[in-house]
């Protein structure tokens, strides 16, 4: 099998692809802008919590005496709470940074897992066809036929609460999106000549799937991926807000917003407002990247 024509061994022209990608980036300043912002948001969410002024999980690091202080106030020991404090007296800046980390981790992990599952399912359906394809795609249609929030709510009713369960629920909601896009993209690739050539050379289906078809379908999957990161983060935040998502021991942004709900009417807006802003950033930037990416890949 190692003796093969060099022409068909590498259907993906790596250098050409890279050059194309570079040219694409150069011609799309708004795509670069959105990518940089997204990278910055991820970096902030994953790195900054360790630099946060306070550890919101550490009961000794904050005092109830400081509760519900408006933004810019100082605590009795002189530290400034730039975004105020929550009902327990925690610094909002620290709480938001830690919350962002949880939201990001849940969003990225579940998206990655959903992508792997979905891509495999979509590839399998496209390459094997027949009954396998029909059954898998019926399942995909079935899941996508319902709003994600509903499916997740039902799953959490059955599974119970917890970070792992939220991630599981998001994966179960999202894999179908990847399966659908992967299948349609793979079907297009399958009709191309290089796949025919690889088949004639007697390559196994598995090899054709992963070495030949998948790399060429990645751009389509990537667009779905960015949008799904945003929707995963929204879903986690929403479930947590509704009180069926992550437990209170893991104060994600959704929980933070929820914890400020009761104080909103009495004017202590900052508890809900600022975590929400952080959440909007987490959701808006990947959506923006997805939109720009789609426009760059499919210019019309």
């Amino acid at each position, binding site marked *: 099998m190692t003796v093969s024509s060099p022409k068909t061994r590498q259907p993906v022209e790596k250098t050409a692809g890279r050059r194309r990608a570079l040219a694409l980036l150069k011609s799309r300043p708004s795509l670069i802008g959105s990518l940089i912002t997204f990278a910055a948001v991820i970096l902030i969410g994953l790195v900054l919590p360790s630099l946060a002024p306070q550890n919101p999980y550490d009961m000794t690091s904050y005092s109830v005496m400081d509760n519900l202080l408006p933004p810019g106030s100082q605590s009795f020991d002189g530290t400034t709470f730039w975004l105020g404090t929550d009902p327990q007296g925690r610094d909002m800046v620290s709480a938001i940074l830690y919350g962002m980390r949880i939201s990001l981790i849940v969003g990225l992990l579940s998206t990655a897992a959903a992508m792997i599952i979905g891509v495999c399912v979509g590839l399998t359906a496209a390459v094997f066809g027949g009954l396998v394809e029909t059954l898998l795609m019926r399942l995909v249609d079935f899941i996508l036929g319902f709003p994600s929030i509903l499916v997740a709510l039902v799953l959490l*009713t059955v599974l119970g609460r917890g970070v792992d369960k939220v991630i599981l629920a998001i994966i179960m909601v999202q894999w179908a999106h990847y399966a659908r896009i992967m299948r349609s993209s793979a079907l297009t690739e399958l009709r191309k000549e290089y796949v025919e050539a690889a088949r004639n050379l007697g390559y196994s289906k598995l090899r054709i799937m992963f070495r030949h078809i998948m790399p060429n379908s990645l751009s389509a999957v990537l667009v779905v991926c960015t949008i799904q990161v945003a929707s995963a983060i929204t879903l986690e935040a929403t479930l947590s807000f509704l009180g069926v998502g992550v437990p209170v021991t893991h104060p994600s942004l959704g929980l933070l917003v929820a914890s*400020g709900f009761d104080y909103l009417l009495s004017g202590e807006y900052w508890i809900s407002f600022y975590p929400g802003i952080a959440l909007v950033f987490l959701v808006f930037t990947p959506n923006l990247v997805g939109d720009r990416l789609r426009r760059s890949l499919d210019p019309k």
Partner: protein
Amino acid sequence: MFLYSLQRLLQSLAVLLAVSVVVFLAVYAIGNPVDLLISPEATQQERADAIIRMGLDRPVWAQYGTFLWGAFHGDMGTSFVHGEPALRLILSRLPATLELVVFALTLASMIGIPIGLWVGLNDTTRWARAVMTGSILGYSLPSFWKGMMLIMLFAVVLHWLPASGRGDTVTLLGIPFSFLTTDGLRHMTMPVINLAIPQTAMLIRLTAAGAAEAGRQDYVRFARAKGVRRKRIVNRHILRNILLPIVTVVGVEFGTLIAFSTITETVYAWPGMGKLLISSVYHLDRPVVVAYVMLITFIFITVNLVVDLTYAALDPRVKLSESMS
């Protein structure tokens, strides 16, 4: 057309059946059915009796048969929390939810379609691009937070609108409605806006994409070459081509919106079935959750069926493929 309708009807029934299997397995096989169907306060003897009476000692497929038979007769068990038949409980909350959803969808269509049309027909201008980027923000705002910010703005800061509840209602045909009283309308405003914002953003994008696509077609250029006025080109040639897909999406979104109203209803303490669902999930009131899922699946399927059949009836191109197949 008849054959097509029959085919779609059978498909719908299959989906409904599939959902019932999934829900049954999820709730009855993964969860403990005894906890589900028997009050937690029951004694040991009562539990044993109930297990036999309800046939929980029988094989799973037989139990599923019983479940399906019950569901078919509108019996979805009794709510633990409210002590009422689950389905009746949900149906009593349905009108409040429908009221929000119908108003939100109407509002979103009235704003989203014209703006989308304008954006699509001027898609190279800076303003159109700004609207398109803005629409991304429109659907990126998490519904619960957006709802709270509306409360902050309109209820706390401006004191214009009440923050929660349904307000005064008028009973029509035995069903209470809010939109017939001024107070009710004031209570509805924020939840409706909150539900409508992402839908508006979605409709803008959808309409804009369709209009831009249609505007590039040869038939539009040909209509211009015929000397047709721009107004007529937009209203007949472009809108006629994109309206059908838009109406389809709006129809399908009707179902989605019912599901998403759970969040909005929770934020605004709107007594609809979404709020009921959340509290049922929270209290693990599984019969209510099951009944909700079955009901919403039914609504979904019905809406999709109606939309598909309408599409087939309205699009001249579908008729052809029908007669040819």
